[in-house]
């Protein structure tokens, strides 16, 4: 029954955005009220949808409800769009609406003093609608449309304070970088379309959807010969092209550079878009399309595509964790942490388990949003200060923020029994069984994660208050309650994926009939030990350090030049600036010259000739047409004057003419008589 109203879940936020777009700036309560109300209804609908999906779950079969409708008809082919409700989309939509709702409520407090409050909520709602549409879409075309829409909303929200040049630059960087990934995504879509005939994922009527067994069987045996790589499976090529989109959108290496700069946006935006939802869209897409990635694998083996995905994911996880260790800005640390955790999710998917990667996506959404909102609360309380080395000792002034932040940190670090432990552990379990190098990279990244989070906590909340320019205060209730609620979920969500609880509930929900790996005590203990070591090291280094009290980083002394390398993000931005961007600027200059010289020149010549032609036309018109007409009129006048000369006024002349006329008539008469 609710399936008929599935489209309302993304539609309501869109309508709220449309409504808010026309509101004046001073109608703040109305704008945020509408947006929150729309999201609340969507949330209720999503939970209902989730409930339906849970109760309808059969033992070995996935419950899937898909609709399609024709959008564009071109002759015999048509482009179809549609919606789908299955465990994957239901759980994602339930999470997105819930977290979005909490963040919207938080934003009413965080953006309270901002003049552009209404515009903010309009964009937030537009984003939420697009994200929900992306999750629910049954067609890759529709998904791509929403994919680009969330990118646009991200641009608008990162550059929300557009008067700041750094924010405008960051927004451009985010959009362009993700666009580069989207090129690969789009080419992948086209290639998939050419091989499958349509882009619908699951077609209930004809079973010819891209992910239906018929099509998968067809794709399995197709190969294509590529110039450098030789013979490759078509599914591999498609999978890797689609993954390009994820590399861009989910900030994997090498397109990760936009996410840290995206922290220029308000913290709610960072929490919603760059932690919980938009960046997760790339991961979600891979999870959705995983049947194509997995095609051709025998018995828990990994295909080429999966290897690439897992490698990039684990490398990103480690790479970003390394950089996070040396950052000073509270939000940058969290940004790199997000990149790192996205790497984990991608690794989990690459190793073949939708449940592992996707579960980490869900738990990460909660605790990362919690951490970002907490950092927002800290920034709000410190009146805009974002440098951790200028904070310190905030535990006393902001107790609620502090304890919820601790909960988030423990969840992120993966401490038992919080949710992060279960999700991260499952990924490491898969890695342990399938690829030791990936397991090692993942473990090192876990260690670093625990370390830098503890470093952050020590710098921000403990110790002595280093800066005396501001007096920190706790945030208002509208900001604290979302923190508390998220903290609750960060703690408790793990239970649904605990293998000892009933049989891994979540795993069973997402991929029934698919046997997961047996939980390994070794891996669990190993990861706990690693996490605790990281926390301990962080505590020792930053908990009671003299250097910290002076505002310096003790890690600088320990690592020396390596620290500089990490602090400067491995100089990747500089690398891109000097290579890709230089090339782009050069090409732009070349094209500008072509445009100015050739195209504008050509246009000027055309314009010149047009002017000449028009002036000739004018002369012609004047001379011949006007002249001719005028002359002929003159002639007529002359003729008239001449003819009127007959009237001399003398009677005798009239008489003469009259008599002449009579003679002529008489002659005519005689002649006709003679002829007869």
């Amino acid at each position, binding site marked *: 029954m609710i399936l008929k109203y599935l489209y309302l879940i993304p539609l309501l936020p869109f309508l709220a955005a449309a409504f808010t777009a026309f509101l004046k700036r001073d109608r703040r309560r109305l704008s945020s009220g509408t947006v929150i109300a729309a999201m609340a209804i969507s949330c209720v609908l999503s939970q209902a949808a989730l409930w339906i999906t849970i109760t309808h779950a059969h033992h070995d079969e996935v419950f899937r409800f898909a609709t399609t409708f024709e959008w564009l008809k071109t002759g015999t082919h048509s482009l179809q769009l549609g919606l789908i409700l299955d465990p994957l989309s239901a759980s994602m939509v339930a999470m997105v609406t819930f977290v979005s709702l909490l963040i919207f409520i938080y934003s009413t407090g965080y953006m309270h003093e901002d003049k552009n409050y209404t515009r903010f909520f309009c964009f937030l709602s537009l984003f939420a609608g697009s994200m929900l549409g992306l999750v629910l879409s049954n067609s890759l075309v529709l998904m791509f449309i929403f994919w680009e829409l969330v990118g646009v909303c991200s641009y608008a929200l990162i550059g929300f304070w557009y008067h700041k040049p750094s924010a405008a630059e960051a927004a451009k960087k985010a959009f362009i970088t993700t666009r580069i990934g989207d090129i690969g995504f789009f080419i992948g879509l086209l290639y998939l379309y050419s091989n499958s005939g349509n882009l619908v994922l699951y077609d209930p009527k004809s079973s010819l959807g891209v992910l239906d067994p018929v099509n998968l069987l067809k794709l399995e045996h197709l190969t294509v010969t590529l110039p450098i790589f030789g013979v490759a499976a078509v599914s591999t090529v498609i999978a890797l092209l689609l993954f390009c989109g994820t590399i861009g959108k989910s900030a994997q290496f090498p397109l990760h550079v936009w996410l840290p700069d995206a922290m220029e946006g308000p913290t709610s935006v960072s929490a919603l878009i760059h932690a919980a939802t938009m960046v997760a869209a790339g991961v979600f897409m891979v999870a959705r399309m995983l049947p194509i990635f997995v095609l051709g694998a025998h018995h828990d083996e990994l295909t080429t595509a999966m290897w690439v995905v897992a490698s990039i994911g684990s490398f990103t996880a480690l790479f970003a964790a390394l950089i996070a260790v040396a950052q000073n800005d509270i939000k940058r640390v969290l940004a790199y942490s997000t990149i790192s955790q996205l790497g984990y999710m991608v690794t989990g998917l690459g190793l073949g388990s939708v449940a592992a990667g996707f579960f980490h996506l869900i738990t990460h959404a909660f605790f990362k949003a919690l951490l970002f909102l907490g950092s927002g609360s800290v920034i709000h309380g410190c009146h805009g200060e974002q440098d951790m080395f200028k904070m310190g000792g905030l535990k006393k002034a902001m107790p609620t923020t502090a304890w919820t932040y601790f909960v988030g940190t423990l969840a992120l670090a993966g401490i038992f029994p919080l949710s992060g432990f279960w999700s991260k552990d499952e990924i490491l379990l898969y890695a342990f069984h399938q690829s030791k190098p990936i397991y090692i990279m993942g473990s090192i990244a876990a260690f670093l994660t625990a370390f830098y989070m503890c470093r952050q906590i020590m710098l921000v909340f403990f110790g002595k208050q280093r800066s005396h320019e501001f007096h920190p205060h706790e945030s208002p209730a509208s900001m604290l309650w979302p923190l508390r609620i998220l903290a609750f979920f960060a703690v408790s969500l793990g239970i649904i994926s605990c293998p000892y609880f009933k049989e891994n509930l979540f795993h069973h929900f997402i991929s029934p009939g698919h046997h997961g790996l047996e939980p390994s005590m070794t891996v669990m203990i190993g990861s706990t030990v690693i996490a605790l070591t990281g926390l301990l090291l962080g505590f020792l280094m930053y908990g009671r350090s003299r250097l910290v009290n002076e505002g310096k980083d003790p890690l600088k002394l320990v690592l020396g030049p390596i620290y500089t390398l990490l602090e400067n993000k491995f100089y990747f931005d500089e690398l891109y600036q000097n290579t890709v961007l230089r090339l782009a600027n050069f090409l732009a200059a070349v094209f500008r010259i072509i445009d100015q010289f050739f195209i504008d020149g050509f246009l000027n010549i055309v314009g010149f000739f047009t002017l000449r032609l028009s002036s000739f036309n004018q002369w012609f018109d004047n001379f011949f047409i006007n002249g001719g007409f005028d002359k002929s009129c003159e002639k007529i006048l002359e003729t008239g004057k001449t003819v*009127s000369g007959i*009237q*001399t*006024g*003398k*009677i*005798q002349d009239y*008489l003469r003419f009259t*008599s002449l006329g009579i003679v002529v008539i008489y002659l005519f008469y005689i002649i006709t008589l003679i002829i007869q």
Partner: protein
Amino acid sequence: MSIPITHYLFVSAALFAIGLFGAITRRNAIIILIGIEIMMNAANINLIAFWRYSDGTRLTGQLFTFFGIAIAAAEVAVGLAIVIAVYRVYKSTNVNEVHDMKG
């Protein structure tokens, strides 16, 4: 009758031509009036000639001629009145000088 009608018609035609010539050519307004009279009389001769050479039962020719004479008299009276009126304005009977209605 022994004189054929054509003789009378020729006379009438000749008189008409003379009258026309005088009306067209002469400068004096009164002479033009005389010319018009001659034309009128020529027409009368024509009428009478045709009456005389008909069977004489109908008097149409005679009557027509009488009417013509009467009308000619009236017309001359009016014409002379106009000539006198014109003379009073233009101080001349030369019709070539009265050409204010030209155009």
